[in-house]
């Protein structure tokens, strides 16, 4: 059996094609300019390898921070209600729409050496965040956390408390229930949240350069390196962009079961 497809109304067709082109054209432009024959060389220069190393440390560190802090936050938000939680939910989403440079500026005034909390971090613990790799991790975590929390929170909401009740009547306390029932039941959402937050952290630019700067080998991530290379060595900038594009596509393909269902 084949269903007859509804014909697309003409007035929708032209803007739809333009919309798709706005998304696709830049990628074609990028791939057309890519220095395919020297791609490997350009991606293995000392500067790019340094940036790759920094990017890996920063993005994996940020994804790890999302797991450690975001999972408990998602659980609390999914299992609580009230006005405070509604306000918290808006705040958690904020970094998704906030210009990253504003996030970086805010981090500077909160965690900088003269910042509200940064002063005490420095004085009591000797921790300095701005312009350090740890600072870059904090900046990346700031922008990536909403992706993790919203993904996991909605999965926890969907899962509901049915299985948790069943575990309780079998004698499992709240922690045992979380570890042995809730976590396994939401593991695919946790995996998706990790992939999304990692990809977002890998691509982070604005908050990172504002809060952590661009110190080679310490805070100069691949996106920052791309931006700098555009001035001096555009071919390398294109090469790194192709690499980041490939990683982004790979993440989406990995998640296709969740979001790219027909």
């Amino acid at each position, binding site marked *: 059996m084949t269903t007859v497809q509804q014909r697309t109304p003409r007035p929708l067709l032209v803007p739809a094609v333009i919309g798709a082109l706005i998304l696709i054209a830049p990628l074609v432009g990028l791939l057309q300019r890519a220095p395919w024959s020297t791609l490997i060389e350009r991606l293995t220069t000392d500067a790019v390898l340094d940036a790759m190393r920094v990017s890996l440390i920063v993005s994996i560190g940020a994804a790890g921070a999302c797991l450690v802090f975001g999972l408990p936050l998602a659980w609390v938000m999914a299992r609580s209600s009230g006005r405070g939680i509604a306000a918290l939910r808006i705040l958690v989403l904020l970094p998704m729409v906030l210009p990253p440079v504003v996030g970086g500026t805010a981090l500077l005034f909160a965690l900088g050496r003269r910042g509200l909390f940064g002063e005490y971090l420095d004085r009591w613990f000797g921790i300095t965040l701005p312009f350090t790799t740890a600072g870059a991790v904090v900046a990346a975590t700031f922008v990536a956390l909403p992706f993790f929390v919203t993904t996991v929170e909605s999965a926890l909401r969907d899962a509901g408390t*049915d299985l948790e009740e*069943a*575990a*309780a*009547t*079998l*004698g499992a306390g709240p922690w045992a229930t979380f570890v042995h029932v809730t976590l*396994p*039941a939401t*593991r695919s959402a946790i995996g998706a949240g990790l992939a999304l937050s990692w990809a977002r952290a890998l691509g982070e630019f604005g908050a990172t350069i504002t809060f952590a700067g661009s110190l080679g080998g310490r805070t100069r991530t691949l996106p920052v390196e791309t931006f700098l290379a555009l001035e001096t060595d555009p071919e390398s900038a294109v090469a790194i962009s192709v690499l980041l594009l490939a990683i982004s596509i790979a993440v989406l393909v990995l998640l296709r079961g969740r979001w790219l269902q027909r």
Partner: protein
Amino acid sequence: MTLDLTGRVARGDLTLDIDLHLSAGLTAITGANGSGKTTLLRVIAGFERLDAGELTIDGEVIDTSGAGPISAAHERPVTMMFQDHRLFDHLSAVDNVAFAARRRRTPRAEARQTAMSHLEAVGMASLADARPRALSLGQRQRVALARTLAAPTRVALLDEPFAAIDESGRAAVRALLPAVDATYVLWVTHDPADATVATQHVSVDRGVVRQTLTR
């Protein structure tokens, strides 16, 4: 030794007025759909609070609307089998049944061995390694029943435990009721044949929960 539950529970349109003093043994709970049978079990299990009154098991206060300690669901000497089974999809049938023993730190091999004997009792031993998702509704119900039987407590609550099991198999699982390792077994049923096994009856009728007969 008795299970005493007296008081009131209000949930939306439903208000239950409860007065129960149950002796050890098998108690059949009957009543129309939506009359509040499940709510009654949820109060005993610890998922709904009493708005007035008290629940005591063998003289120990478990829940009270007055001042006093209230036991959380996982601390109560109560286990419950849900109408919608609520099996853990990430565990095989045998590991579902072994769940309660594992939480009491019984070694894995021992917990599984005990679980297997309970699966055998409900006729599910051959599907011990199957995931709940791969089982039919009736098979899932059998596993849920085995999981409850494998969690010895003083009070076992079963919400329509045989509803999804076919007529031919029902007599065999019904025969398991007296073997349940609990002082008080309360089960919700619509099946008149079930009632013949019961030593006590509770009716839930328009929000009034009463014992109707003791044999």
